[in-house]
C-alpha cells in the first residue's frame, strides 16, 4: 500500500513540478470564459429569432442551452481524453526506453503496484477534471440561458468513467508501443469511437439499418463512446417531440441512451483491459 501511495505521489509531484496542473487550470479557465461568452452571444442573437418562429412551438432556451451544453460536453470529453492519454502514454515502454522505469521496478513494490498506481493517479485526476469542467459548463449554461439540464450527476459520472477507460486503454498500449506510437494509436481509437457516433446519427437520419448497426457495434466495442452518447442523451432525457429532435441534431450529436447494461459492460471492459495490461507488463522484459 505504501508503495502505491509513493508511486501516485511521484506522478502527482511530477505533474506539479512540470507545471502541468497550472497550465491545465489556466487553459481550462480560458475555455470556460470563451464558452460563457459564446452562450451569452447565442442567447442575445438566436433566442429572439427562435422565439419569433411561433408555429414551431419550441422552447428556445432549452434548444439553445442543450445544444451548447452538448458542445461543452464534447469539449470536456476531448480535454479529459487528452489528459488521460498524455498522463499514461509512456508509462511502460516509453519510460523503460528512457531508463526511468528500471530503477523503480527493481524495488520491492511489484510491477502490478506500479501499473495500478499509475492508472489510479491518472484516472482519478482526469475523472475529477471532467466532473469539474462539466459542472462549470452546466452552471454557466443554466445561469445564462435559464435552462437546466434534466440530469447532472449521471452524465458527469459517465464522462468520468469514459476518460478512466481511455486511461486504461492507453496504459495497455504503453506496454507494447513506444510513447509516440501509443499516443497516436489511442487518439485514433478515440476518433474511431467518435466516427461511430456520427455514423449512427447519419444512419438514423437516412433510415439505414446497416449504418446504425455498425455504429452500435462500434460503440459497444469502444464503451467510452457509448458512455459519452448515454451521458449526452441524459441531458434532455425528459424532453420529447420537436425539441428532442433539434437537440439530437446538435453539432456534436450522437446522443443515444444505452440502458443500465452499459455500466456492467464498461466495468467488465475495464477489468479485461486492466488484466491484459497487468499480464503483459508482468511478462515484459525491461
Amino acid at each position, binding site marked *: 500500500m505504501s*508503495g502505491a501511495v*509513493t508511486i501516485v505521489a511521484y506522478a502527482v509531484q*511530477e505533474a506539479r513540478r512540470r507545471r502541468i496542473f497550472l497550465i491545465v487550470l489556466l487553459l481550462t479557465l480560458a475555455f470556460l470564459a470563451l464558452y460563457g461568452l459564446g452562450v451569452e452571444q447565442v442567447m442575445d442573437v438566436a433566442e429572439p429569432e427562435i422565439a419569433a418562429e411561433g408555429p414551431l412551438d419550441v422552447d428556445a432556451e432549452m434548444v439553445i442551452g442543450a445544444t451548447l451544453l452538448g458542445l461543452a460536453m464534447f469539449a470536456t470529453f476531448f480535454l479529459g481524453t487528452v489528459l488521460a492519454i498524455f498522463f499514461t502514454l509512456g508509462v511502460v515502454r516509453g519510460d523503460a526506453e528512457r*531508463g526511468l522505469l*528500471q*530503477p523503480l*521496478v527493481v524495488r520491492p*513494490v511489484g510491477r502490478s503496484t506500479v501499473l495500478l498506481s499509475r492508472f489510479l493517479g491518472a484516472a482519478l485526476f482526469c475523472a475529477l477534471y471532467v466532473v469539474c469542467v462539466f459542472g462549470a459548463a452546466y452552471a454557466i449554461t443554466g445561469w445564462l440561458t435559464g435552462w437546466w439540464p434534466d440530469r447532472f450527476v449521471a452524465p458527469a459520472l459517465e464522462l468520468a468513467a469514459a476518460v478512466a477507460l481511455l486511461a486504461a486503454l492507453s496504459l495497455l498500449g504503453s506496454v507494447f508501443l513506444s510513447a509516440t506510437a501509443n499516443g497516436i494509436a489511442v487518439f485514433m481509437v478515440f476518433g474511431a469511437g467518435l466516427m461511430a457516433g456520427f455514423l449512427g446519427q447519419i444512419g438514423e437520419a437516412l433510415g439505414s439499418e446497416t449504418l446504425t448497426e455498425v455504429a452500435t457495434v462500434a460503440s459497444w466495442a469502444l464503451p467510452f463512446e457509448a458512455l459519452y452518447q448515454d451521458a449526452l442523451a441524459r441531458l434532455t432525457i425528459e424532453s420529447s417531440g420537436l425539441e428532442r429532435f433539434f437537440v439530437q441534431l446538435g453539432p456534436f450529436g450522437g446522443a443515444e441512451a444505452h440502458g443500465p447494461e452499459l455500466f456492467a459492460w464498461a466495468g467488465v471492459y475495464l477489468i479485461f483491459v486492466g488484466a491484459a495490461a497487468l499480464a503483459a507488463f508482468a511478462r515484459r522484459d*525491461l
Partner: protein
Amino acid sequence: MPALAARGLAKRYGAIEALDGVELEVEDGELVGLLGPNGAGKSTLVKIACGLVRPSAGSVDVCGSPAGSLAARRRLGYLAELFRFPGWYSADEVLELHQRLSGSRGGEGERRELLELVGLADARDRRVEAMSKGMQQRLGIAQALVGSPQLLLLDEPTSALDPAGRRDVRRLLEELRARGVAVLLNSHLLSEVELVCDRVVILSRGRVVAAGRTAELAAPRGVEIETDGGVRSYPEARREDAPRLVADLVRAGQPVYGVRVLTTTLEELYLDVVEERAT
C-alpha cells in the same frame, strides 16, 4: 548460501542466444568483475538477477530467493548501464523516493551519509537536470546503496566518471566489501576490474569462457633477470624456477640486480579467450 547464484542460465531473444548455460556465484563480501565484449550477455545477466528480464532456462537466486521475487529485490541494489532519474528531482529527493520504495528506515541520516560517500554532499538540493553525467552516475551509485543491500549489481558504474571519480568508486567498493556486501561489477575497464575485484568472470557470446582469481587465470610468460650483462630472458621458466636461476647466475659470478616473473595481463587473457571464442 551465496549472495548470487546463477545455474544453467539461458536467454534467447528470437534467434539470438544472449546467454547459454551460464554458471556464476558471488559470495558475501566478494567483489566479482564481469567482463566481456559488447553483446556478450553481461547486461542481460544482471537484468535477470534484478528481475527485469525473464530467463529462457535456468535460474538465478539472490540470497536464497528466486530473482525477481519481492524477497530477492529487498536484498539488492542495482545501477543500470542506461538509467535516468527525473530531471525535476533533487539528489536528496531521488534518494528519498528510493528509501520509500525499498522500505528503508534510514531517513535523512542515510541520505546524507550516501551523498557524502559518493562525493555529492554539496549537491544535495541540486536538481538532476542541472547535474553533469558524472554527478548523475555518482547519484546512481548512491541510489543503489539505499536500504543497505546485501548484493550490489553495478552495470558500468564508472563509464562517465573522470579518473578521480573512478578511484573514489574503487575505494567505495573496497569499503563495501569490508562490510560484507557482495558486488557484481560489470565493466569494460579491465584495469579497474584487475585493481579491485577478487575474481573475474569473462563472458563471450553468452558463455563463460574464463573464471577465477586474476592470479590463477594468468598464464606464465617466462622470467627476466637483470645482470651487469643486460637482461637475460628465460621464456619457458615459471615463477618457481626464479630462485634456482638466480642462484645459478650468482654461482657463475654474475651480479643480479633484479628479477621479473612475467605473466599475462588481464587484458591479454581477456583478448585471448574472447578472440578464441569468436573464431
